[in-house]
């Protein structure tokens, strides 16, 4: 039982654990920023009214959303070296995969956000002489983004948890770091318990933030 547990290895493993945590957070942050930007462009493409552009964006989003992330991680990891002729490493492969994958999910959120803004605002912006990009950049997107902040954060919560799946290609994230340290010191059980606490603390804080944002941000219509 618990008496056989030895948590004294945790201080020894801390530097390695922090390094893993740093990668998990870095991956989350890059994939979030890249995903939101790419996702917004995808959403604009879908709402542009252009037949082929809209279809292409929809196809991309549908494909990404119907394939398991774990499978996607493997695809990119094995396919990028085939296309470029050289391996790019687990970490880079993970970053590319997550950004492209999350973009599909963020794009659905941004699409809903853009659609939550009354059409009259686009017309008004165009009527005062703004170009399409000006009307989007100054009028529609800032409001759409603001309305969707809680939902975007919820998606980021999912994204952060999903970063643990880079285990499949051996990138050293928080979970993998725990496994490595556990094997090094022969204390796998303690390491897993410790790291699940870290995951819990971060995710719990994020979900509290989402709740707070939900109360603060009333949807403007």
């Amino acid at each position: 039982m618990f008496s056989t547990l030895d948590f004294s290895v945790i201080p020894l493993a801390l530097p390695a654990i922090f390094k893993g945590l740093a990668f998990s957070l870095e991956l989350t942050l890059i994939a979030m920023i890249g995903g939101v930007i790419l996702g917004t462009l995808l959403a604009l493409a879908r709402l542009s009214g252009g037949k082929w552009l809209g279809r292409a964006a929809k196809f991309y989003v549908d494909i990404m959303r119907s394939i398991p992330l774990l499978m996607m991680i493997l695809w990119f990891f094995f396919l990028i070296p085939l296309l470029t002729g050289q391996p790019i490493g687990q970490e880079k492969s993970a970053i590319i995969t997550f950004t492209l994958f999350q973009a599909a999910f963020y794009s659905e959120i941004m699409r809903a956000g853009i659609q939550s803004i009354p059409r009259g605002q686009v017309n008004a912006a165009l009527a005062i002489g703004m170009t399409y990009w000006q009307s989007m950049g100054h009028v529609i997107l800032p409001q759409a983004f603001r309305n969707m902040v809680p939902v975007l954060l919820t998606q980021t919560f999912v994204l952060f948890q999903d970063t643990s799946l880079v285990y499949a290609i051996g990138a050293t994230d928080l979970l993998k770091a725990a496994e490595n340290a556990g094997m090094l010191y022969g204390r796998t059980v303690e390491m897993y318990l410790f790291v699940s606490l870290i995951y819990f603390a971060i995710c719990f804080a994020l979900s509290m933030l989402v709740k707070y944002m939900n109360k603060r941000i009333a949807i403007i219509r």
Partner: protein
Amino acid sequence: MNYHWNWNVFFQTIPSGDETYLAWIIHGLGWTVSISLAAWVIALVLGSVMGTLRTVPNTGLRLIGHAWVEFFRNVPLLMQLFIWFFVVPEMLPRDWGMWVKQDMPAKEFITAFVALGLFTSARVAEQVRAGIQALPRGQRNAGLAIGFTQAQTYRYVILPMAFRIIIPPLTSEFMNAFKNSGVAYTVGVWELIFVSRQMVEETGGQVIESLIVPTVLYILCAYAANQLMAVIDRRAHVPGFIVAK
């Protein structure tokens, strides 16, 4: 890109036996479907109970439901699977732990679907709670006013309505169960991801063939789940009630 396609790879036998890769993939599909469906049963039963508990008047029961959801939602699925597989057996009394580690039949499969089921149950619970809370307050009051007990009100008034209006969000959770089942490969279940990775390694470069067939099978599984739920939704649909996702 210099890629040598070789679809015949599926009719080669695997190094460790006399099965073909095609047969292996079909077995893998079997495990994927079994894990997902078994997990879905757990998720639906426990998720319904916990989601309902979150809406009852009793504070203690509400707290249990709340704690359940927070506990299973705030740790990544893969981490939870490792906890069940590597940590929990060590926490059991010695004899039980030894039995789990050495003698328990199909322990990889059972651990995998239980872990996936519990993880999914927290998400189902949230949908059930949202469904119950989306009902007009008057329905509960009406139930109580005609002399139903709290339990009867849930059984005959609230839950039949709530379940019918949350079928669309439950559909995506059902599909997620299939998509998430791949983590089972990490504890050694020979499901689709496992087979796919193994094929990439063993066939010496038939990467695309090895990945594309399992990928298509995953899409078909998710599509089948979607269609099944669509049939149920068509029959159970309540006109005029929509729960926002």
